[in-house]
């Protein structure tokens, strides 16, 4: 049985990039943001590009999925990111590339009962 602390938490960044800049942005994300995220306990699961072709005059959507092993680990990375001015600086700098961004936090449906304590 999965316990609350062990349910994998998925952190998904969905980012709509200004036309023609998606490849450059994803490269910066992976070089500047990802190493610190991994130090905070996140594991990079995948990075998706939609549509799967680098667009010149239109926007790509870049979707990056991270995992953390449970709720305690989620809070640890949350507090660590909050204490690190480099994280805030990264997201401020990212505004130059992005039209919009959203981070969602989720679990597998089979883990819902465990994480809600029901």
């Amino acid at each position, binding site marked *: 049985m999965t316990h609350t602390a062990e349910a994998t938490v998925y952190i998904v960044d969905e980012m709509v990039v200004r036309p023609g800049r998606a490849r450059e942005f994803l490269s910066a994300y992976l070089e500047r943001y990802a190493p610190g995220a991994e130090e905070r306990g996140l594991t990079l699961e995948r990075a998706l590009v939609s549509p799967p072709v680098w667009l010149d005059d239109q926007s790509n959507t870049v979707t990056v999925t991270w995992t953390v092993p449970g*709720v305690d680990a989620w809070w640890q990375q949350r507090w660590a990111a909050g204490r690190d001015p480099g*994280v*805030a600086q990264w*997201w401020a700098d990212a505004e130059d590339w992005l039209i919009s961004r959203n*981070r969602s*936090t*989720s*679990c597998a449906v089979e883990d819902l009962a465990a*994480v*809600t304590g029901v």
Partner: protein
Amino acid sequence: MFEVTKLIRFAADVDASAGKTVLSELSADVTPHARRVLIRPTLPGGIAAGDVIARFRFDAESDWRAAQNDVERRLWTAAVEHVDSVTHTGTPRPAKHDTRPTVYRTLLVAVDPSTDPKLVRQFESETAAMPDYIASIGASQLSRVHDASGSARWTHVWEQEYADLDGLTGPYMTHPYHWAHIDRWFDSERGQRVVTALCHSFCRIDEPLLVP
């Protein structure tokens, strides 16, 4: 009802007796005017929590105004390094269970003043709904702030009671309605943050505070 909450931090070099004297005099100043006075040391683990929570309930704002000068003067002393202070009016939401509360928690938040009012109302309704999902929350109250002072321009007070400390440090923190949903209003990484500062403070209580 009209309520006043102050998170009081003493100077690092103040001795315990001096701090106790300040609080005793504070209580004497406010008690004749208040319906209810809580002055309690904070429990460890807060954020910008202060050393003491002082929460006063008055029948009317005029009762607070009658006490205000004495209270503010009492706290204007070298023994007190910092005070985060709010006045607020809210409607307590009763607990869903009869368990007697022993822990009171207050959260002062500052919502970015440029936030779309629709988003502020969404933040308020989602926050006030936390007891619908998190069973350890007893009585609760979300209030908008009238007057604020301290380290930020505080806009809201989110108060809850718990049967024990585990209810706050356990289920309140581990329930996904909090960390996977409400926390997006607080987390700059999610792109939806509206809260720019907070004080998270809690203390022991002997009887319920959040009552009609």
